[in-house]
């Protein structure tokens, strides 16, 4: 049951991600992206990370993609500009490298990474740290400093984006 769900959602996540880079229409790309995020969220749920999963939806699907679609609409970028220039060689090389990368990752990650396991994982154990209360206890004790730093980063991001996008100033 779980394996079926995993393979189904994983496959859909891959397909939707592929559609993001294959779609010609920018808005369609963005919509595939939203779908991809949803499937990713399901994958997180399957990992028993319900808080991360809902954050994935709120942050990525709800906020970031909303921004992106807003920008696309505002700039009216329905179609990508026509390809007049030839494709650069570096892109072809890069694609080749990526294929190599994939196989290296497979060998390294799948072949060897699992050795790091600490034995079987049970649901009870997972309850312990997918749960919001547990996470927040860690977040406000051990991870307080990074948490505060991130808040500063976000503030800086807001200020920066307002400054950049302000008309007539930049």
């Amino acid at each position, binding site marked *: 049951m779980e394996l079926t769900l995993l393979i189904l959602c994983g496959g859909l996540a891959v397909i939707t991600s592929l559609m993001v880079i294959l779609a010609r229409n920018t808005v369609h790309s963005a919509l595939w992206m939203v779908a991809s995020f949803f499937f990713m969220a399901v994958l997180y749920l399957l990992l028993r990370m319900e808080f991360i999963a809902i954050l994935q939806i709120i942050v990525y699907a709800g906020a970031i993609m909303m921004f992106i679609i807003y920008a696309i609409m505002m700039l009216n970028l329905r179609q990508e500009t026509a390809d007049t220039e030839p494709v*650069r060689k*570096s892109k072809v*090389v890069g694609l080749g*490298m990526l294929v*190599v990368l994939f196989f*290296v990752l497979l060998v390294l990650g799948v072949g060897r990474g699992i050795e790091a396991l600490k034995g079987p994982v049970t649901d009870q154990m997972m309850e312990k740290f997918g749960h919001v209360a547990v996470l927040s206890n860690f977040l406000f004790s051990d991870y307080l400093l990074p948490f505060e730093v991130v808040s500063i980063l976000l503030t800086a991001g807001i200020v920066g984006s307002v400054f950049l996008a302000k008309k007539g100033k930049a």
Partner: protein
Amino acid sequence: MFDYVWLIPVFPAIGVLINGFLGKRIEKFNKSIVHWVACGAVGLSFLVTCIIFFQMLGLEPEHRFYEFTCFNWISGGVLQTYVAYQIDPLSMLMCMFVTGVGFLIHVYSIGYMAHDEGRYYRFFTYLNLFMFSMINLILANNFLLMFLGWEGVGMCSYLLIGFWFSEEANAVAGKKAFITNRVGDFFFIVGMLVLFCGLGEHGVWSFQFSRVFPNVHLLSPNTVTLVCLLFFAGCTAKSAQIPLYIWLPDAMAGPTPVSALIHAATMVTSGVYMVARSNILYSLSPFAMGVVAVVGALTALFAASIGLAQNDIKKVLAYSTVSQLGYMFLGLGVGAYAAGMFHVLTHSFFKALLFMGAGSVIHAMSGEQDMRLMGGLRKKTPITFITMFIATLAIAGIPGLSGFFSKDEILWQAYSSPHGHFLLWLTGAVAAGMTAFYMFRLIFMTFYNENRAPEDVQHHIHESPKAMTVPLMVLAVLSVIGGYLGVPHALGGSNRFHKFLDPVMGMGPDKIFQKAAGGSLHHVAEGSHVAAHHPSLFMEYLLMAVSVAIALIGIYIAYVMYVKKRDLPEKLAEKFRLLHRMLFNKWYVDELYTLVIIRPFHGISNFFWKIIDVIMIDGMVNGVARVVGWGSSVLRLIQSGYVQCYAVSIIFGTVALLVYYFLKIAG
């Protein structure tokens, strides 16, 4: 209360912060807040000092020692230095009169600087910074913190001498003071390091006084002498001794309260304080002591002789200061540390008073400093006249006033102590006569006869405001009674001053070795100041009488020359033209320095600049840059400006790393 000793330096520091950062606005808003803050800070410091001082007085002499550690300052390997303050009779005594006199001068500055718009806050910031540094210098319990204060006062001195920097002469004077002091500081720091390393060889890695001094017997005599001479070289700059005294007369370019505070009462005595503080070291090196004594005596005489012919009121006082500092070193050099410190104390009273009186005179004369254009101020500025007159009597060594006791003690010790000599006494006595002469010359030229100033200036002559005269009066009282702290046995006193300083001063070399044998530091100090050989009481009276007589003769000559027969100086100058010109031009020392040191220095600098710097160093640097530039022009070809190309190169690097990792674990 001892644990609150850190408050003493902190108050002026707060003053610095407030006036330094907000002063400009405060001054615009309300000028009086600036001086309230500054004076308040120093006043509070003085208050705390008083409380600690009197609390210390309540203790048994052997318990009058306390160290308070604020925080770890420098921590590196064997070197552990703390910001820590030391309370003992010597440091508290210095602190008392530095904060006390400093406070009076702060108050005086309110009146004196009142018309200096826009820079008022800056002046008080510098003064407070100076107080902060000076207190650190005095209270420090280790050489490094002392050096911090040492440098700090030097810097403040520079800032204050050049306070009216819009006139080039002032800026040049500031630079001169700064550079001359740098030379001395260099010796000081070298001496400090020699001491540190020398003691380190014996396992005592420390700058702390209470660890250094009980262990100095471990050092070889040569090292001790070297350290002492290096330290003394530092003092010659800070305390204006031959050969580095040249900056002090020029330093009179600064505002008069500065001259009073820094260049008469406090900063210049820091060298004396330092030698007195390291008295154990000096006790171990008779040669170094001899150098100190001779240099001190020569300075006293030399500076006094220059003072004879100066016309600028502040210059006279400046040379007088140099001369008096020479006395103090003479005292230190003959092993009479307490006498030297006593003179520091009394001198700070009457010299601060003299400078402030001079300032008051200058104030009255609308900024005129040339004594030839003064005269007859006795009636118009009575308070200034009376107070200055008292100070002059004190400095001239008239019996009953403070200067008499301290100066006489130094002279007596110069003759009688085991390190003393008749010639030292004679030099000192002659210098005392000269002092009396030029000081009364100053008084007569300024306050007697008719006024020689231009008409418009004459109309403006007036007594100074309260803020200036009150400190004058306070100091005048102190100048009179200050000497009674240390009335010698010969005159029926108990010489309390000596007894007070005994725990710090009374450690001759023999005591140190005793201590090494196991005795505790402060117990052996008790009652150790019994001189080895004691010349007769008659001799003491005789010498006292002689020196007083010399002083009186000096005064009489001055009276004759500047009140009775006022054409006499002209004639004398005609007759001894060469001598007069030598004196008037300060023995041409500045010119000599220019010729011997500055010119060659310029030449060498020029060589380093033109040849070493421009051709060699710049050549190397530019060569490296050229090689890099050439390399970059090649490498730049892979920089296409396309983001995605860069992304590809990142992927390339990632793949390369991962493949390497893979091969490593596979193989």
